[in-house]
């Protein structure tokens, strides 16, 4: 039996998406060409643009396709900054590396950066953000929902604080994890730019999109031809984009019910873990959290060992432990919400998807307690906590 609970990393392709991509596989024309072959591709591209923009609540001419979420983030942040002289930018300490490392790069290249603290649940305080705004603030980037702990940020409130201060500050949100799992509407949320990705919603890898509100001026980061308004030059990945369109269409259909079902399974997993395993901590917001995400610290054991043992039992999850990142540093998200290193090292992220079922969760709950207790028997830390 294989149970896949790593959907925040990536998701399996939906059958309908596979079919859409297979159906479009014969359409090979360059979408920029004038002839009929080109037109067929262009039609697919624009049909997909309709679907994705309708999923975001924007107009199709406010959306460009990109190669992935990381690319969308880079084009949004770096592209906007290339058109302004203002040198102050704001983000949170728990952004995905696709945003955080762009800010670090900018920091090293003449920008002043405010990295906002988050509370113990990983939420950004809109008042804290309001206090950080300055006359020379160019851009704010705060994620819609966190990939590791699932906490959903008060994006609308943040946007309101920014607008109260100035109409000129641009607000970008990385909604790669939020899209499909929480209500997304660029107008209601009040954002100027939003990054999303296909492979997190059962679409293909190698396709992302960026919403850029009409009136927001950004300059190219990649230099080339006129594709995607010159902001993402290069011949479009029409087949992948068609798959993305289909993925959005099916994700939006009955989204509320699907998320409720996922949420019930997640809660079953959470309650089962709380009941059967002592010395744990649930990370992330107790309520304002993605319905599919559960992040747990198991005291005195290390995350990579847990995921390796779960893998041997056929269960795929991930960890915020340094040991898997290759950097020797524990998750910046978990350290930012106040976890000590040992707890961060012992964290496991279970991220469910639309295809998981009760039986699979039952199977995980059957295997997990034995694995944790086996690793605790091996741990020199476990005996110390018993003494406390």
């Amino acid at each position, binding site marked *: 039996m294989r149970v896949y609970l790593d959907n925040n990393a990536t998701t399996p392709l939906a059958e309908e998406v596979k079919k859409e991509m297979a159906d479009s596989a014969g359409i090979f024309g360059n979408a920029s060409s004038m002839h009929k072959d080109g037109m067929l591709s262009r039609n697919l591209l624009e049909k997909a643009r309709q679907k994705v923009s309708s999923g975001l609540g924007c107009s199709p001419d406010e959306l460009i396709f990109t190669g992935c979420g990381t690319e969308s983030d880079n084009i949004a942040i770096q592209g906007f900054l290339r058109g302004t002289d203002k040198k102050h930018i704001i983000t949170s300490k728990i952004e995905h590396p696709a945003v955080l490392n762009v800010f670090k790069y900018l920091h090293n290249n003449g920008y002043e950066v405010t990295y906002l603290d988050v509370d113990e649940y990983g939420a950004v305080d809109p008042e804290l953000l309001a206090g950080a705004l300055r006359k020379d603030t160019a851009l704010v980037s705060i994620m819609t929902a966190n990939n590791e702990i699932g906490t959903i940020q008060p994006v609308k409130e943040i946007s309101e604080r920014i607008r109260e201060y100035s109409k000129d500050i641009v607000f970008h949100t990385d909604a790669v994890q939020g899209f499909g799992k929480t209500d997304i509407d660029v107008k209601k949320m009040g954002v100027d730019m939003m990054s999303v990705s296909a492979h997190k919603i059962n679409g293909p890898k190698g396709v992302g999109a960026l919403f850029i509100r009409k009136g927001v001026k950004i300059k190219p980061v990649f230099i080339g031809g006129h594709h995607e308004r010159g902001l993402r030059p290069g011949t479009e990945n029409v087949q992948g984009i068609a798959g993305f369109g289909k993925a959005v269409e099916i994700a939006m259909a009955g989204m509320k019910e699907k998320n409720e079902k996922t949420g019930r399974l997640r809660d079953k997993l959470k309650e089962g873990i709380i009941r059967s395993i002592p010395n744990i901590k649930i990370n992330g917001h107790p309520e304002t959290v993605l319905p599919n995400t559960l992040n747990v610290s198991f005291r005195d*054991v290390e995350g990579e*060992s847990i995921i*390796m043992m779960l893998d041997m039992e056929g269960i795929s999850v991930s960890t915020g432990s*340094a*040991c898997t990142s290759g950097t*020797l540093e524990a998750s910046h998200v978990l350290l930012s919400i106040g976890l000590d*290193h040992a707890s961060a090292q012992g964290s496991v992220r279970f991220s469910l998807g639309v295809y998981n079922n009760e039986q699979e969760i039952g199977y995980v709950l059957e295997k997990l307690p034995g694995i944790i207790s086996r690793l605790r028997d091996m741990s020199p830390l476990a005996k110390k906590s018993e003494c406390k």
Partner: protein
Amino acid sequence: MEQYSEKVMEHFRNPKNVGEIPDADGVGRVGNPTCGDIMELYIKVDKGIIKDARFKTFGCGAAIASSSMVTELVKGKTLEEAEKISNKAVIEALDGLPPVKRHCSVLAEEALKKAIEDYKNRQKDV
């Protein structure tokens, strides 16, 4: 990340010599949670020969496999021989470790050196 060797997986799946030795003659404790791994190595010495070795480790797959391997390598060795066991010997015995995991073998070597040092210090006190 690079895959673990079959040998590493074997020692991770069924680690040898897990546990403590209550009346150990030497104990070596190295590492801290910040760097990710903590290793405790216990040795029992008789007439200059390591008769038994056990470990307790908080760490990743490579740390557990390295601990298991080092206890296997030292058993039956004289203290002089054991002192010469380097992290390279641990890596070789495990059929290699991914580059980002080499520090785990260093930790195993250090734990062993500390346990031997602890044993020698205890002898001086007697």
